[in-house]
């Protein structure tokens, strides 16, 4: 939250449980339709399954679980966001489950506000900030804290 620069940041927004989240577009490799999932036995519920994305095995991450949202059925608008993130210091491709993929928005540092500690239902540490875009509150993910296997 403290290291916000003045360069505009491009984020891809997606929807989970009716809320709009944003992820740094530079992290996004591709957006794919839901793929058949292989459940990993005894896995962390945050990474419950694996999918085959063009010949590589990619873990599926369930942000709903990490944010304490109720599990949801797959819907026609559901997509997988294939992201490149650091997991335990290792560049890793993950497939993030999203209810819908929205748009690409540009935010400048000035537009980004710190996360109000009491304003959100979820732990503030997962977010870099919030920005209001076209009347919608976009919650910007902090990739560093969101993706480690063990929730900090």
């Amino acid at each position: 939250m403290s290291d916000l620069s003045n360069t505009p940041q491009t984020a891809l927004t997606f929807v989970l449980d009716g809320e709009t989240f944003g992820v740094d577009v530079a992290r996004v490799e591709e957006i794919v339709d839901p793929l058949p999932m292989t459940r990993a036995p005894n896995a962390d519920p945050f990474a419950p399954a694996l999918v085959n994305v063009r010949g590589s095995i990619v873990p599926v991450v369930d942000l709903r679980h990490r944010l304490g949202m109720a599990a949801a059925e797959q819907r026609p608008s559901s997509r997988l966001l294939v992201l490149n993130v650091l997991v335990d210091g290792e560049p890793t491709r993950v497939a993030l489950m999203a209810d819908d993929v929205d748009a690409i928005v540009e935010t400048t540092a000035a537009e980004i506000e710190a996360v109000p500690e009491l304003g959100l239902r979820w732990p503030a540490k997962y977010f870099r900030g919030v920005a209001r875009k076209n009347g919608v509150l976009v919650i910007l993910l902090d990739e560093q804290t969101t993706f480690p296997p063990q929730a900090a």
Partner: protein
Amino acid sequence: MSNPSDTFAQEAEELLQSLEQSLLELEGAPGNATLVDAVFRALHTLKGSGDMFGFSALARFTHHFETAFDQVREGRARVSHELIAVALASRDHLAALLALGAEAVADAGIAAEGHALLARLNAVVEEQPAGAANVEARATRTWHIRFRPATNALRNGFRPDLLLAELAELGRLDWSCSDELVPAIEDLDASDCWLVWEMTLETSGSREAIDDVFLFLQDGEIDITAADEAPAEAETGDEPVTADKVEPQLETSAGPAAPKSDSVRVQSHRLDELMDQLGELVIAQARLRRISDELGDTTLGETAEEIERLVTGLRDATLSIRMLPISLVFGKFRRVVRDLSEELGKPAQLVTEGDETEVDKNVIDSLTEPLVHLIRNAIDHGIETPETRAAAGKPAAARVTLRARQAGGEVLISVTDNGGGLDADAIRRRAIERKLIAATDDLSEEALYQLIFEPGFSTAKALSSVSGRGVGMDAVRRVIEDLRGTVEVRSRTGIGTEVTLRLPLTLAIIDGLLVRVGEGSFVLPLASVEECVELPEDEEARQSGRSILRIRDQLVPFVALDTQFGFPPSDRKRRRVAIVSVEGRRVGLVVDDVLGQHQTVVKPLSAYHRGIEGLAGGTILGDGSVALILEVATLVRRAQSAPRIAA
């Protein structure tokens, strides 16, 4: 391989390794002249090419090392324990110099170490006159040498004066130089070499010693023949032409040095790339086969089958390229054993068996560390003190045996010592103390031995005092399990201990058995599956109680994978049991269905799933879905420890 000094470094490492090997063998056979020559030749090559590639500190030290060893070769010094010790230390010094790189200047510390070593080396060589000629005495022989350098030799830096000086070091040298081949002055390129040397050398050195001098001049014409051994005739042998005619080649075996090998060096990452490509090919082929099965077209089916056959052939050929003899690892341990037994005052001898057994390169790379652990443990904790051995009527020198062999799709590597064996009572006490088992637990000896691999079993010091083992044994097991292998221990009090590592032949592609549990497909390594049977319905009915199956009068415990995986209990009738072998015991794994054999390309899992016990990796099936590869040993261990936690 663009950088010549890298190439040299690689060669030099091999030379240093063979030098170490020869020195260690020489210690056991001090009179063996062939070994002395081997040491000498390794040093000589190192010196020559070291200079060429700018490793001048290394070349200088090697020169002095070589000079000292020359005393041994000449029979003026004898091979002693002390000499081997200094020579080994000097070898290590060379390795340190090599690590500095080309054109590097050794710092004062290293330089001082070098001086000290050379001083010790010279002292050892001088104070130990051969006396009763320890090295096989060699009669002086006379050799005729005709040498015509390659025409471009002078341009390549050939120095006739140095060559003659080096030969003169071997003994008494007479030589003449003939210019009869030199062309007329108008046709002569002054930088060409047309001279021919005729030499007579009287030396006690071997034919190899002479060959060594010509080691870097192999593109010239070299003709070395032995004259009659009678000194009187040697005098007349000054006439080289007749000598050539009179004397047929006496030594046929010793051809010019540097034997040509028909192998090529390939950087290992290229092999890895090849393997990756092959992995993709195997997956694509599985897809092709599936599509062809679905379409049911005969022509397509035949083609798909042919491609499958070709891919299998290609797979085997590629895998065989990655196979290296285990001697590459075993060779390193003579030194470990020697140093340790010296340090601990426990005479011990290393015996290796099955050195030629081939293992995947990546497996070999990971094996050194666990084997060092096991050997250390064997000498440190397994082998008794000389006094105890004497009291037990055992020979003073203990033996550590490293054995490798292939069995089925696996490589078995064992470390055996003839020491005191594991102390089951001490292990039991220790395990209770560390809360690994309850005081009331009744465990078999085998089960007790397995406890030494538990993390936290050992905190070293306390343990040696109760003659247990376990220094880093959990680390050993972890490495072996990462390689999808298992560790077994057998021990008999007073007789010794044997630790056996079972490893898959290769890591990249395995033959697997595809099974279904719930919605998912899983792969069991075929090597660990012994048979598949049907789960009797009555067994199923009382599954909640005892999980033991009777197969041909043998009782086999079983675990249901759906329960293990936390999947909803299967309602399927007629389930199957895959009987696997874990640490020498048979255990059944209940699955919903057995789908068949599957050539499995192993893909690593991400940080999210790597740590899950019982998973060894993932693979992609012909229909594009992901299947998980199971690690049978950890899976079974996990299942068996579960009830204890629950209780």
